[in-house]
């Protein structure tokens, strides 16, 4: 439920209350209702557009007994007015609560630090790649990468393939395309093929990882120089 829905619901509720009250109120006086009862000589005086009255021999129409009130009755009574005001207060309170809640959320201009996350995890990945069979090592390496990137807020959607996720990471952040793509290609070969993977594949993954590490170091070094 967003702000607009709440506002519309509140206004709709208030309008409904008003409608119910008007429908169940005392009959509203007609504008040309006579002020006297049937006992007296009653005549409807209907004003013509020209300003003249109809001839005084016009037929009299029986009228309902009136209350004899001179003023137009107000459709609200005090209880209804309170209810209406209460509704307004509730709607305003809801809007205020939502505004305060949204203010606690992350501000838009904070991006997850994927480069930082990758820089953290790359040394650990070298160890993962070096252990076990090439196929398991490459898949484990990719899983660790995905998990680390997910922790920065860029989670792989369950319907996304690894290519789509990679492209999304690459499109969003300035990480080198060739390196990540070659790692992703090796991951897909390890994950979905049945032919044997040998040390050649492990070496290719290690080389890609080393290249990525070097790029990340180069990317963070200018910041160190600037601060240093």
């Amino acid at each position, binding site marked *: 439920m967003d702000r607009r829905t709440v506002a519309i619901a509140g206004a709709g509720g208030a309008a409904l209350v008003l409608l119910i009250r008007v429908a169940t109120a005392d009959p509203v006086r007609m504008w040309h209702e006579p002020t006297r009862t049937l006992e007296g000589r009653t005549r409807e005086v209907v004003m013509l557009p020209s300003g003249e009255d109809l001839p005084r021999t016009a037929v009299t129409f029986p009228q309902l007994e009136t209350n004899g009130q001179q003023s137009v009755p107000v459709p609200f009574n005090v209880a209804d007015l309170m209810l209406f005001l209460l509704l307004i207060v509730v709607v305003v309170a809801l809007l205020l609560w939502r505004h305060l809640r949204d203010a606690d959320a992350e501000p838009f201009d904070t991006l997850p630090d994927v480069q930082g996350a990758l820089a953290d995890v790359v040394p650990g990945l070298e160890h993962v790649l070096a252990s076990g069979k090439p*196929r398991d090592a490459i898949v484990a390496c990719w899983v660790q990468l995905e998990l680390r990137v997910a922790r920065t807020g860029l989670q792989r959607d369950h319907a996304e*393939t690894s*290519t*789509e996720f990679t492209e999304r990471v690459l499109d969003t952040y300035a990480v080198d395309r060739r390196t990540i793509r070659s790692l992703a290609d090796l991951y897909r070969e390890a*994950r979905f*093929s049945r032919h044997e993977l040998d040390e050649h594949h492990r070496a290719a993954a290690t080389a890609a990882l080393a290249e990525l590490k070097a790029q990340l170091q180069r990317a963070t070094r200018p910041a160190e120089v600037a601060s240093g």
Partner: protein
Amino acid sequence: MNVARDPGQADDVDAVARRAGEILDEVERAVVGKREALSLVLASILAGGHILLEDFPGLGKTLAARSFAQTLGLTFKRAQFTPDLLPADLTGSFVFDQRSGEFSFRKGPLFTGLLLADEINRTPPKTQAALLEAMQELQITVEGQTFRLPPPFHVLATANPVEYEGTYPLPEAQLDRFLMRVSFGYPTEDEEGDVLRRRMARRKEEQSLRPVTDAAGLLAMQTVVETVTVDDSVTRYCVALATSTRRHPSVLVGASPRGSLALLLASRATAVIAGRDYVTPEDVKHVARAALAHRITIKPELWMSNTSGQSVVADVLSTVPAPAALDRDTSNVG
């Protein structure tokens, strides 16, 4: 268990990938700028299936079919479907030969390598059924005698999506027989300019292409496609996509098991064209629209909405979980 990489198989896949690239390059000399659509058509042919080209007039459907026939080295026949076309006009019939005093069978256009069935939605259901039966069974029965259609036999059917006057739309059960439905779409301005420039450079109407392979070569390529491995998670993904179309709220009838089979066959061929001997979920997603959209029937009350087979497939692709790293087939470990 790891299968040791058969160097022969790897070479085969590489050779097929190279040849597929050459075929597409050659066809692109005639059909400008439609590489992705052309590779879908080639994937269908390598998977042994038939293709429905649904497009507005003048977008190169006949040209593409003729170009593929020339490049693949297949015999090419064109059948223009009209409302008065009879099944015998397609299959052939027995004709009395006065000299020998016997009936001899005169073969119809179905006896060919690549058949272009132009405007398949202009012919009555009986003729459509004759064609579709030949596509399915790869044989024809005329007056009690059965004739096998020698492989390879592929049909490229065309249909114009706009015309409704005097057409007999293919029923859903028949649409299911086509492995893929492909549209080329209008070319970009640059591509259209390129078409005109090439025509002027050629100085003649017909475009002749170099045959890259022949019927036997195509059969060999199809055999290699059969050796591509498919991980169990990818197979389950194909099935999940097809079953999701059946459960979609806008769908009256979803894709049948033919749909999941089509996904599998087409994605294997796509993998080979890309030079791989394994299928990835990306291959499945790549062929999903072409392989599934025409098998889906939308609820009739949604005729005014933008819902179509394409939109349902797009929905399904963005909701069905793709195979992840950690749920791989454990028999693969090694």
